[in-house]
């Protein structure tokens, strides 16, 4: 038999659309529909957001309405039913919306009308939800409705399996950690009551183990369990302040290929213009991202880790049914130009004199596409940033010839824009002042 994988593993990408489950393996160019044996068509919610977690080489789903599991070997979707005890539902039979795998247990929460409770299957048996077996064992199922630890007391919004010893539980206003297996003396501890975590999967983890999450107050935090979460978004908090976590889904993913943290903020109702955020880890710097095609804004993301370089990337599920990834060689967003923009500056003086841009020399990368520059001027930096360019032009790849600017104002910016990929080396500008007297004479 030919050896299909030296590593002895096959990584399956599983997607849900129109409530149906599909599979693609690395290198495959088509999706294979799973055989549905649940008796329901489709087996999952037709349009709603779906969550999942793997356990024992099977995938278990939480969509708030259905009990479904997926076997990637047989490529079969089947009903997830309990062999012992019963699967948790609320008073009107809603099923959980939050799910993770921790210590070999499937952990569930997010019942619409019982959102503060957490349920755990028996270890290595996602069908065993018997919380009160005849013989108590450390591997039996657990629920906060039964266990002596009690509920966390607040609506659970995130289940984050940090390590075998720690399950981080985000709630709407607090963050707790379950330290140790609850059937082996594990206890809840409140890490903070100052912030909670946004609902769903507004978190991810770096390879170093740091958890990144969006708080209930829409700040981005880095957290190592046992320590107080640290805000990393002070620089962009005014931009994040407009995020509506009720109408938008927040998805976060760690991109190991480009060493950055993605914060996707996607409207739930329909494809719409959205602003996402990316944090480059090497320099701890924030940038905004916009996809000109609204269908590209993802509600589903996945940190994929196949065997080849192209298969180790963040995957994004769009509104148009396509799964996309960031690619070093892609010069567009799957055919749609990428409009990029950056402001350099402001250039001003401490004495508030007028400054003048004289000559300028811009150096772009040797293989860069051209960029359009625009000089923005204003009586204040704020006015300049919002102004229309008073001089524009184009800089090409490599070292450009001297460009005389010849414009003066109290504050000046240089704006670079392009719809094509470009790279930047530096911009040298001759800067002079027009004197205090002239400065007084201008409104």
């Amino acid at each position: 038999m030919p050896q299909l994988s030296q590593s002895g593993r096959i990584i399956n990408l599983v997607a849900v659309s129109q409530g149906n489950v599909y599979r693609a393996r690395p290198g495959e160019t088509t999706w294979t529909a799973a055989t549905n044996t649940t008796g329901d068509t489709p087996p999952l919610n037709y349009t709603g957001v779906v969550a999942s977690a793997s356990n024992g080489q099977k995938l278990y789903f939480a969509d708030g309405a259905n009990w479904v599991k997926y076997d990637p070997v047989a490529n079969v979707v089947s009903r997830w039913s309990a062999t012992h005890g019963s699967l948790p539902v609320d008073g009107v039979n809603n099923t959980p919306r939050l799910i993770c795998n921790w210590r070999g247990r499937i952990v569930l929460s997010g019942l619409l009308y019982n959102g503060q409770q957490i349920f755990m299957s028996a270890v290595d048996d996602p069908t065993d939800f018997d919380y009160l077996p005849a013989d108590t064992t450390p591997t039996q199922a657990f629920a906060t409705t039964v266990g002596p630890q009690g509920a966390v007391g607040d609506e659970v919004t995130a289940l984050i399996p940090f390590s075998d010893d720690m399950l981080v539980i985000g709630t709407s206003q607090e963050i707790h950690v379950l330290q140790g297996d609850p059937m082996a003396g594990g206890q809840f501890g409140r890490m903070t009551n100052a912030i909670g975590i946004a609902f769903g999967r507004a978190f991810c983890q770096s390879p170093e183990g740091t958890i990144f999450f969006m708080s209930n107050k829409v700040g981005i935090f880095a957290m190592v369990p046992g320590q107080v979460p640290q805000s990393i978004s002070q620089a962009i908090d005014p931009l994040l302040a407009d995020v509506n976590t009720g109408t938008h889904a927040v998805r976060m993913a760690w991109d190991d290929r480009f060493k950055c943290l993605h914060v996707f903020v996607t409207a739930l109702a329909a494809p719409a213009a959205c602003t996402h955020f990316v944090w480059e880890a090497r320099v701890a710097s924030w940038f905004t991202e916009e996809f000109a095609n609204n269908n590209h804004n993802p509600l589903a993301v996945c940190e994929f880790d196949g065997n080849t370089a192209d298969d180790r990337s963040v995957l994004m599920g769009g509104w148009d049914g396509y799964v996309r990834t960031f690619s070093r060689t892609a010069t567009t967003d799957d055919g749609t130009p990428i409009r990029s923009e950056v402001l350099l500056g402001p250039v001003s003086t401490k004495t508030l004199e007028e400054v003048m841009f004289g000559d300028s020399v811009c150096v772009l990368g040797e293989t860069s596409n051209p960029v359009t520059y625009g000089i923005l001027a204003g009586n204040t930096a704020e006015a300049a940033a919002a102004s229309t360019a008073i001089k524009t032009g184009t800089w090409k790849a490599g070292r450009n010839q001297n460009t005389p600017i010849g414009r003066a104002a109290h504050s000046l910016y240089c704006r670079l824009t392009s719809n094509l990929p470009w790279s930047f080396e530096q911009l040298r500008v001759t800067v002079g002042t027009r004197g205090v007297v002239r400065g007084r004479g201008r409104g």
Partner: protein
Amino acid sequence: MSDQQAILNFPVAGIDVSGPFSDQRPRQLPGEVDEAGNPVYGRTCPVATNVRVTEASSLRRRGGTRPGQAKYVPQRVGGHDFLVQELARIVVSDASAEG
């Protein structure tokens, strides 16, 4: 004041809209020092959309556009023009690795 040469580097320290427009301060870059052992600072900016410090084509830290998007699987999920509700990875054993 006589004319001076100003170097406008790419805003390596990214967007910072926390302070006044007129005080767009550079930020110390984490863990970086110059040859003399002094902290290294990077410029910040008020607007930086679809750009990255690590420019996509060369992976050099010089500034440029972010990487573009490409289809991971050429076909739509299920063949439908319909939103993808969930993406997940699941690993299974490959018996053929035994040879």
